[in-house]
């Protein structure tokens, strides 16, 4: 079934919370995440003809966000150390909704743990573990083989479990 532009706009608006969450997983900073989402939405609409009707709009937009993020990384020549600093900053900034102290700490801990992962593993975690996509859909969105995705997920899971659960055990 063909989707009119108005329908696509409504679908994009419905996708915004998931896009923000994905972008935050990538960038580690709420303000950077919203900038990335904004760029993603603009890019998607201005290149809407490139979206193949009948395929998943969410996968296509996650792919755009991922590619824009990689472009930004390359452009700014960010080092992994700089990215890690960016993630540490999430503890101070946080989303408005994360006002309660407990929620804010859990949020910051998780964001910091995600920031310790290589960006390719973060993308896999964001789509499968956080967004709940199937391996097949996530692999398509990230344009990687399923084997690569499962390998990244396995490595990321172990690193995250050590960091997130280990920190809780210590506290």
């Amino acid at each position: 079934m063909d989707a009119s532009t108005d329908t696509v706009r409504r679908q994009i608006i419905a996708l915004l919370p998931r896009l923000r969450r994905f972008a935050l997983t990538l960038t580690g900073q709420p303000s950077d995440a919203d900038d990335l989402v904004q760029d993603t939405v603009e890019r998607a609409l201005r290149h809407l003809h490139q979206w193949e009707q009948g395929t998943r709009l969410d996968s296509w937009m996650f792919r755009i966000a991922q590619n824009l993020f990689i472009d930004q990384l390359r452009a700014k020549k960010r080092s992994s150390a700089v990215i890690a600093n960016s993630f540490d900053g999430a503890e101070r900034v946080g989303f408005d909704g994360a006002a309660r102290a407990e929620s804010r700490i859990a949020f910051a801990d998780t964001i910091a743990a995600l920031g310790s992962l290589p960006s390719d593993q973060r993308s896999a975690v964001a789509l499968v573990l956080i967004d709940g996509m199937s391996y097949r859909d996530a692999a398509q969105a990230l344009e990687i083989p399923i084997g690569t995705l499962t390998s990244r997920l396995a490595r990321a899971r172990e690193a995250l479990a050590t960091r997130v659960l280990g920190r809780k055990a210590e506290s």
Partner: protein
Amino acid sequence: MSPTREELCAYIDGELEPAQMASIAALVESSTELKQYVYNQERLLENLHAAFATMMNEPVPDQLIRTATDTPVSFRAMVRDWRTQRSALRSSSVFRFAVPAAALVVGLFVGVGIERPASSYIGPSPTSGQIVAQAALASALNEQLASQPAQSGTRIGMTFRNKSGDICRTFEVGGDASTTDGLACRRGGEWQIGALVNGPRQAASTYELAGSSTPAAIRDAVSSEMNGLPFDATAERKAHDGGWK
């Protein structure tokens, strides 16, 4: 036999075939170490979801919604939309004979990587099924004379009568890198778009419209459609006052 960590992850994520799921489940059940691994991974998932739960429930910034609502779509997507609507019109018995068999002038849509201006100024007509000028572009074609400066980013170029007797006008929207040039002809109370070009300008040669260099495709469209000479200022004013009939 121990499962690989990838198999364990796929088991936790429910990505294995039923037989494999049962096989891994049996292995996990028989191993304290594997049980602990699965338990930790399930706790990790709970942590990840809980961490983002607040954010998922908070309102999305207005700016993002405006971007989704207001960003113009690509011209090719708009044409795809229009074709879909036209197809729906044609399949309807009411409109089957209402859609013109051919475009009013040359059905040129060139440089289809079009970006900003075009999509907000043109769109499909609900009555004729043709792509027509809308909003500021329609106002400019109705009201603006070639001698007047650009208004709302739209400049009018040449006015002439085509071989069907309709009045046509060239126009330019934008003025910077994303400038769109086009040709519209008046039919059925609408300005139907016959040619549209977006992209880097080409050097002027045959025609020089309103002091700007007009893309070759528009010049060609004008050449093939024009009947007689372009209107001078007096004829243009008279056509304006007469409602472009």
